[in-house]
């Protein structure tokens, strides 16, 4: 294998056989045999139904699965080697798979996907998560069509979610991205998205791929750099996406993947949109859908306890991250007891901004900063759940909107502490 190449010789040989394509869809996996077959079949159906004339390839980049993930993907190929697999297809559809040995993290997978897209000169690219088991062929059309038809550079999804699903996105990632970059992208850490060949080449040329933080959350960086690079964005309503249950250990990982990248990206591309400017709505295509209101079982008491214990245990660490006044307010709020506890939007936004600034100034290890955020986020989640326990979908949306406005209103505060005056 050529030294320093992200592409193995075997994978390169497969890409040579694929040749130039119009559409490349990447599926990063790791032990996803239970779901990847269904996902790849839907992708295949979407390509055959909506893009029958385009030259397409499905590229699976696997982190070293020990199950049959890769075999399942390869078996979805349509070719004359397996006659009858889909006689109605005009073209061969290669479904190829490669293993990246450097890391089991997603960043290497996405790096491989954009490198492959660049090499085979795909003009329309997509990434689909193997967790997206509710995917329908129409998702492919909704994600890819804006790129192929409207010359859009990036298409991010809007899912129909449960009102208590996607809380990290609603309480932090979306409002903060929106406030800082002045673009209302509902899923700044998308699981399924599409982008143009131009943008793939742009991503590939970024000198970021060796960064540990990118290994965890390249998707978020893609969205941010598409915004800061002035590329055309749009959003597509996709439908329901199944809720993925996260254990407490996953929370830190989720924070790394989204918030960590968001903070890190601030250091690279501090937003230039004026602090008092209105945020821009990003066009969304497709049919919107109300959030589902099915009850979700959440142990709020445990959330609160984890917040209180975390705050207490991490007080010395938080002392180096947060301002004295913010930490004092947090301690004071925690002391009110579960029944009266409320993590206000104002206090939450100041907390987040101070974490971002601390991350930028590297007051302690950036990863420790992200880890320290976990208990505070649990506190905010507790408040969100309590406040919205009986809310309608519209009320939940209004509350998210109010939080966004708080992030926007306090943006000057971030500028102040970022520049070191606080």
């Amino acid at each position, binding site marked *: 294998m050529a030294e320093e190449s992200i592409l193995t010789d075997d994978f390169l040989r*497969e890409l*040579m*056989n694929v040749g130039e394509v119009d559409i490349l869809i990447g599926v990063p996996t790791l032990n996803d045999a239970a779901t990847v077959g269904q996902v790849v079949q839907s992708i295949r159906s979407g390509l055959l139904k909506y893009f*029958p004339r385009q*030259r397409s390839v499905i590229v699976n980049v696997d982190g070293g699965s020990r199950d049959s993930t890769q075999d399942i993907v390869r078996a979805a190929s349509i*070719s*004359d080697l397996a006659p009858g697999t889909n006689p*109605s297809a*005009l*073209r061969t559809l290669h479904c190829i798979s490669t293993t990246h040995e450097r890391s089991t993290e997603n960043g290497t997978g996405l790096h491989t996907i954009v490198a492959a897209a660049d090499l085979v000169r795909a003009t329309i690219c997509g990434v689909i998560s193997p967790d997206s088991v509710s995917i329908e062929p129409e998702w492919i059309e909704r994600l890819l069509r804006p790129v192929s038809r409207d010359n859009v550079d990036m298409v991010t999804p809007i899912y129909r979610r449960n009102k208590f699903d996607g809380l990290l996105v609603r309480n932090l990632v979306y409002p903060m991205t929106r406030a800082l970059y002045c673009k209302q992208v509902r899923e700044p850490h998308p699981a399924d998205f599409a982008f143009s060949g131009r943008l793939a080449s742009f991503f590939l040329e970024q000198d970021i791929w060796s960064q540990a933080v990118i290994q965890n959350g390249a998707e978020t960086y893609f969205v941010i750099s598409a915004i800061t690079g002035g590329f055309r964005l749009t959003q597509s309503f996709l439908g329901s996406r199944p809720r993925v249950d996260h254990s407490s250990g996953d929370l830190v990982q989720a924070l790394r993947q989204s918030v960590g990248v968001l903070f890190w990206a601030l250091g690279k591309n501090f937003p230039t949109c004026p602090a008092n400017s209105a945020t821009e709505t990003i066009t969304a295509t497709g049919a919107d859908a109300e959030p589902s209101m099915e009850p979700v079982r959440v142990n709020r008491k445990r959330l609160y306890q984890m917040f209180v214990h975390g705050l207490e245990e991490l007080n010395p660490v938080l002392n180096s991250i947060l301002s004295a006044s913010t930490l004092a307010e947090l301690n004071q709020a925690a002391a009110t007891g579960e029944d009266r506890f409320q993590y206000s939007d104002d206090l939450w936004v100041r907390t987040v901004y101070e974490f971002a600034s601390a991350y930028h100034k590297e007051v302690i290890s950036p990863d420790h900063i992200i880890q320290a955020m976990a208990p505070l986020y649990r506190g905010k989640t507790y408040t969100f759940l309590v406040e919205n326990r009986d809310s309608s979908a519209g009320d939940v949306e209004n509350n998210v909107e109010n939080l966004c406005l708080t992030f926007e209103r306090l943006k000057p505060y971030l500028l102040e502490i970022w520049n070191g005056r606080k």
Partner: protein
Amino acid sequence: MALPQDPLWYKDAIIYQVHVRTFYDSNGDGIGEFRGLAQKLDYLQELGITAIWLMPFFPSPLRDDGYDIADYRSVHSSYGTLDDFKLFLDAAHQRGIRVIIEMVLNHTSDQHPWFQESRSSRDNPRRDWYVWSETDTKYHGVRIIFTDTELSNWAWDPVSKEYYWHRFFSHQPDLNYDSPAVREEMWDVMKFWLNMGVDGFRLDAVPYLVEREGTSCENLPETHAVLKELRAKLDREFPGSMLLAEANQWPADLRPYFGNADEFHMAFHFPLMPRMFMGLKLEDRKPITEVLQQTPSIPDPCQWCLFLRNHDELTLEMVTDMERDYMYDEYAKDKSMRLNVGIRRRLAPLLDNDRRRIELMNGLLLSLPGTPIIYYGDEIGMGDNVNLGDRNGVRTPMQWDGGWNGGFSSADPESLYSPIMLNPVYGYQAVNVHSQKRFDHSLLSWMKRILRVRKSMPVFGRGSMEFLYPANHRVLAYVRELGKERILAVNNLSSSAQVVELDLQRYKGDILIEMFGKNIFPRVTDRPYLLTMGPYQFFWFRLRKI
């Protein structure tokens, strides 16, 4: 030169399709004739073809370019006389060129005396030679073939006040093959020409001979029975003669036309042709390999006939709706290029006059299993004229040189049977035999070379075929094998250079000899055989164990 006596001669044949009126006008009346065609036999011999397929030359009102026959036992006066035909036939045979003529079994012209008698009264002895009905509702649901011109398969005859059945134009009434007299008469017609020395017949529109209520009236067992009866007589009385079926059908429906080697010797492979064009445009071998995978095996003495273009539109009846839409969009963007269910264009314009693609498609035609047919003028890259009606745009005069009427005729241009091509790309001054003969690298010279190579090894006509399926789907590769003879054909369907790895382990130790330059390529080993190929390039290798 004596004709070889091999009864399977058609398997090695390279057939040249020509309409006598289009080829050469020797008497200056603006219409080609048999004397003119005979004068050009040296050209055809030099080109390397071994058989000529003549389109209908019988007396006819010419409302369907001769497929509306008014007398089966004579020659249209514009093309000469029966004696002229005999002279031409003998001259062809002397050059080792066989002659296949058209026989339109299904229908006659409405001007044919048989039909005139048949319609004259309901009591006429020839009344049942055609298919009559008091209503136009019989055989309901049978598809209409010429959808652009016909609304029904029935036409009203004001003379005998009944409807008559016609699968093609309304001026072409279908003969009634339920009548023993019709079957006997048509065999007599065939004997007439066989006795003169013709080598075979291309039987036109054979799926439609017999009609039955509640069926599609196509491919019926009764039709096969008629054809088998003709074949048995042919074998008994004229062994070594050949029957070629025109049946535009799916491979599975075509297979019965071979019977147990007791019906047709050859049949056109209609579904393959559009898929060759599709594969080229898609840069993907899938359409070609799939249709050949679906093609049933045929009895040993039988053979498929392959073609790229012919006198008709590029038929798209044997493709799916999605494939048809794709073909129209890619090959006939201008709607005037579309006719019925097909595309009325010649080979060179279809391929954007791209020499590399023209060579590749001819390379496929000549290396896939079957007997190839070259349509007149395609060997020099003639163009078409979509402004002429019907399919006349692909039937313009042969372009012999850059002089008066392209060397086709000394008549005034206005009196030519068809306008000659004049445009700067395909006109006779740009594309003609004379200028291409002068250069070794002209298309004509290249065609002569490839036909020579094709004829050098019987494996092309008679060998088995096995696809290799390299992972690169832009490359179509197959091995043809006959006894100890083996050739490998590798075709890059793509507009860009390609790398391909071929699994040739079965031929380990063989040396590859490139068949045009006779150059030696590396010996086959255990490892994949690596080839790099230019855009639209193809290789023919002979595999030799030395």
